[in-house]
């Protein structure tokens, strides 16, 4: 079983559309698991016209204050680094759930042992099965701060079922935090998707700092190649200097049209230049991952 992580810049680079396209194309012949780790705003399922259902809840540690043991000494309030606890004088300890970082300091410092470990839902794991393509989505509760935790738990869940599939594809959100690190750690190959804009380049450089430090094999895809005024030349030079193999998907009107209609360009305009490049990329990936033509 092979694992590919598709990472890249913020919304609009086309990373999710590419991850979904790769998944769908591989799924013609192989059993594929696509994992949406963009827990704040998962959108793989809209491109797949899928309605995944909740199969598991994800929890984080939250303190529970045992009021009969609590002596209102206020030590927990003092040691909470994010002020999620308030001492209401002579009354009780108030817990502000939305600020809690689940560090556990309060539980440790309470001299009365009046704080015990409780948990709260911070997100869900959802699933949908569509023939050869199975979809798992990690989704964080809206406004939830602990998105890395939601990602990490989704990854742990998926690790347990991964052996049933020939290929596992992680759709990783932009950024360089904990959840992304965990997905890259498992991957045999990291596919980075970028676009030839300054922000895209800024994000690409940051991502490669992480990839280099993890010593991961990677391939870059410059999406929307040929965009007027784009910095593709600088990006190509950067990738060459870092000895990273890269592919290009040309910018064409069909990509925009497909985005507007909510489909992947491979389905909507299969003969367009962008769609043909994606198919070529998938053939290359097939060779790399499975060493076959």
């Amino acid at each position, binding site marked *: 079983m092979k694992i590919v992580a598709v990472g890249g810049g913020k919304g609009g680079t086309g990373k999710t559309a590419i991850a979904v396209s790769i998944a769908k194309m591989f799924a013609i012949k192989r059993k594929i698991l696509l994992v949406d780790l963009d827990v*704040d705003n998962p959108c793989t399922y809209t491109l797949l016209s899928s309605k995944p259902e909740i199969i598991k809840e994800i929890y984080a540690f939250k303190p529970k204050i045992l009021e009969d043991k609590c002596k209102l000494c206020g030590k927990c309030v003092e040691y909470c680094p994010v002020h999620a606890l308030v001492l209401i004088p002579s009354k009780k300890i108030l817990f502000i759930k939305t600020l809690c970082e689940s560090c*556990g300091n309060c539980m*440790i410092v309470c001299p009365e042992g009046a704080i015990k470990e409780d948990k709260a839902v911070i997100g869900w794991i959802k699933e949908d099965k569509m023939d050869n393509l199975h979809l798992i989505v990690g989704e964080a509760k809206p406004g939830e701060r602990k998105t890395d935790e939601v990602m990490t738990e989704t990854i742990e869940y998926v690790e347990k079922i991964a052996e049933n599939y020939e290929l596992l594809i992680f759709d990783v959100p932009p950024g360089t935090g904990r959840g992304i690190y965990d997905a890259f750690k498992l991957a045999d190959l990291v596919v980075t998707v970028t676009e030839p804009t300054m922000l895209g380049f800024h994000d690409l450089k940051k991502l490669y700092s992480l990839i280099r430090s993890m010593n991961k094999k990677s391939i870059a895809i410059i999406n929307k190649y040929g965009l*007027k005024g784009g910095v593709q030349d600088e990006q190509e030079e950067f990738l060459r200097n870092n000895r990273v193999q890269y592919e290009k998907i040309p910018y064409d009107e069909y990509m925009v049209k497909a985005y507007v209609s909510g489909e992947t360009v491979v389905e909507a305009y299969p003969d367009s230049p962008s769609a043909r490049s994606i198919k070529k990329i998938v053939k290359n990936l097939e060779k790399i991952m499975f060493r076959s033509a």
Partner: protein
Amino acid sequence: MNIEIVVASGKGGTGKTFISSNFSYFLNKKGFNVLAVDADVEAPDLILALGDVKKILYEENFEGQVVDIDYSKCLRCGACVETCRFNALSMSDEGPVVDYNFCEGFGTCALVCPVQAIYLKPAKRGRIFAAISNTGIPVVTGDLDIGEKNSGLLVYRIRELAKEYSFKFNARLIVIDAAPGIGCPVISSLVGARLLVIVVEPTPQSLKGAMRLKELADKLNIQSLAVINKYNLNPSFTRTIVDALNVEILGKIGYDDKVVESYTLMKPILETYPESKISSNLETIFKRILERLSL
């Protein structure tokens, strides 16, 4: 006294930066002294949308804290490794090792160390800076180090720096490009603002985010107005938004490759395609905002 206008969206990727950069450009062209603030530090593209940096005027480090271990006291008992809920500690032959990619600096490990060998120390998490962009508009923004996240405090510091520079540039209007979502960095972007412009795109998630944002603004006694961006992605849902979102809709903007191109060229569309339909819709919207502010 300055007037702060916040452009936010409740859900990422809707086009806040597109709106806030063009709004800043519009105000500047109309003769207002404007200062642009990018509170979305994890994706600092406001200055890019305004032509990139021409000159940096000021910069400073933004710090947080992390733990460190005094190995001369350490017993290698492993209590710290077991306690850390962020997996930032692991045991090696030399003793426990801190992974600074994950250490949040909460110090739970320090609390369980039987010999107090762990202490907190400051650490650079990013930087904030003030610069002039190539469109001539001053911008205050920041940049985060790998693995770091935005926070209410960081946005607060950026806004403080912005206020300072607004005096230097005699800028009465401050346009703030908020972070996505409705968390702490957004609240920190909103408090004390005069007006909120909600950017919503025609998807159910975006509408939900916009409604939550409106609730937040109501609680903070801030007036809200809305703009529907990329309306052609789903014209029928656009109508749903008009009904569901209890906020004055200033107008609708379409999405096409002129938007993508302008963004790549790092120029506001008002500069690259001033005669386009998108530009004229933007101008109508911006004129309305000025009317609501009595300016």
